[in-house]
């Protein structure tokens, strides 16, 4: 009973955080061999409210848009907006990203397409890239091992399903481990960002103890102070206690403004204004490589969350190949020609 209650409360909290009225959005890029991309967007919402300002990806009147009302698996009515547009190349997609006025307009995103001629095959690479937010952060791979990284980059509901399925205890304990490590990563990133910004704001007017290098050497010490005082961080920061511990009494008074500005910059970058969505891709020819997930329909999939591009560029990449039939034929004929010649040359000498 207690367990059920716990699950229920957790679910309520999770639902509270997950549903901020933004539609659940899936963007599908159908990449063509000539570099053009058919982009499809599917947005699902419990309300018929699809304001441009609340959309995760650029969408305007030039798209072919269809609205419908559907019943989902839980028998709830869902408003679905489907939009499609053909882009002549990634340049057009990037232009749309640059002029985006939606919910994720503050995020720098772009797409890349590359075609390589390799005689027997043509190689195609398509990527959607989101630039990192924090300037001085640490890559998450320094904190998580391969298995934990897989968990980190998996869609949240896939992980939730594992936590509630068979071996649930094992998965929950694993999830707790990942979360603890991530907590450390978050704190370290904020401290590192603060040091970086503080050093750049104070510039050269500081003494030797306050240079970026010397502050960086004490980074772990700062992290420990923050972890120790996490419960009352806000109050301790406001009254200057933490800053005094970091840089000493005199410096704390002298550089209070710079320290506050640096803290604001660090938290602004940490609290990315971003609404998550999912990216899918369909590549031309045979799929040969990807860093994404593969769903039951064989489509590539990447969940997009703010944590993924907090300290590193988030690159969703897929590679595929199409055989050049004409090159195969030409090569075959050439081989027949050369081997016939060689046989012809060998025959008289055999006589």
């Amino acid at each position, binding site marked *: 009973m207690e367990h059920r209650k716990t699950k229920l409360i957790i679910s309520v909290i999770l639902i509270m955080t997950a549903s901020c009225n933004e539609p659940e959005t899936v963007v599908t890029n159908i990449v063509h061999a000539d570099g053009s991309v058919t982009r499809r967007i599917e947005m699902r919402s419990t309300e018929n409210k699809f304001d441009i300002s609340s959309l995760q990806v650029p969408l305007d009147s030039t798209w072919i848009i269809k609205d419908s009302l559907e019943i989902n698996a839980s028998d709830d009515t869902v408003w679905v907006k489907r939009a499609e547009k053909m882009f002549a190349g990634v340049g057009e997609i990037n232009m749309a990203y640059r002029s985006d006025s939606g919910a994720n307009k503050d995020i720098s995103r772009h797409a890349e397409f590359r075609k390589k001629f390799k005689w027997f095959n043509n190689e195609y690479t398509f990527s959607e890239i989101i630039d990192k937010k924090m300037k001085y952060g640490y890559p998450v791979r320094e904190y998580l091992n391969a298995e934990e990284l897989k968990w980190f980059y998996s869609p949240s509901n896939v992980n939730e399903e594992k936590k509630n399925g068979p071996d649930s205890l094992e998965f929950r304990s694993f999830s707790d481990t990942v979360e603890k490590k991530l907590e450390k990563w978050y704190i370290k990133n904020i401290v590192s960002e603060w040091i970086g910004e503080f050093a750049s704001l104070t510039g050269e007017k500081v003494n030797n103890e306050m240079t970026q290098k010397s502050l960086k050497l004490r980074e772990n010490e700062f992290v420990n102070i923050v972890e120790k005082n996490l419960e009352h961080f806000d109050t301790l920061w406001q009254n200057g206690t933490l800053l005094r511990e970091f840089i000493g009494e005199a410096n704390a008074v002298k550089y209070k403004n710079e320290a506050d500005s640096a*803290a604001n910059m660090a938290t602004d970058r940490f609290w990315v204004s971003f609404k998550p969505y999912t990216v899918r891709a369909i590549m031309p020819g045979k799929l040969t490589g990807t860093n994404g997930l593969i769903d039951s329909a064989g489509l590539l999939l990447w969940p997009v969350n703010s944590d993924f591009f907090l300290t590193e560029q988030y690159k969703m990449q897929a590679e595929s190949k199409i055989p050049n039939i004409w090159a195969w034929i030409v090569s075959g004929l050439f081989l027949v020609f050369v081997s016939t010649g060689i046989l012809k040359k060998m025959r008289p000498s055999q006589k």
Partner: protein
Amino acid sequence: MMKTTEESDRYKKILELMRSSRPDLARPEEIVNEVIKRIQHGNRPTDRISDFIGSLFGWIYIGWVRNSLVAAAAVMVSLFIYQQALILKQVNNISRQQVMTGIEPIPGSMTGFDNKLTIYKFSNKLSPSGDIKISEKQLEMILESYDNLRSKYKNLIRIIEEDPELKRYIEGKLDANKKYKPDI
């Protein structure tokens, strides 16, 4: 050059000798016809093809051309084998990749929720865009109840793990719960 002139002179002499000593032919028309027939026979397509093939494969008698073409063919075969093996390896890697079945992914990071909530204590802002604003007191209440919940949850997990019978019972119940879907 000298040799060619000598041969030419000898040829002319033989020709003159043959002209001067003509044989006595009974039916010269037949010979004419035979000559014409042989000339026609010489221009047949099969001979032209063999001539063409002969000239096409003329390179086999030129060492450096022959070696270059053999080398080019070897490079082509190697390239083909390498490319196809690489593709096969990549495709195998992809097919080994975990396929998500039966779950429609919902965007949104919920696993890092508690971490972020903890980190939230760093800042007065819940959302930089200013969409959601709650008072500090409300936030403290959420954090407090969340921490409470977390510690109770951890205790519960610990109790379950320490008691194998209870663990089996809970897992059995969870399995049964999964199989039974109420019509709500």
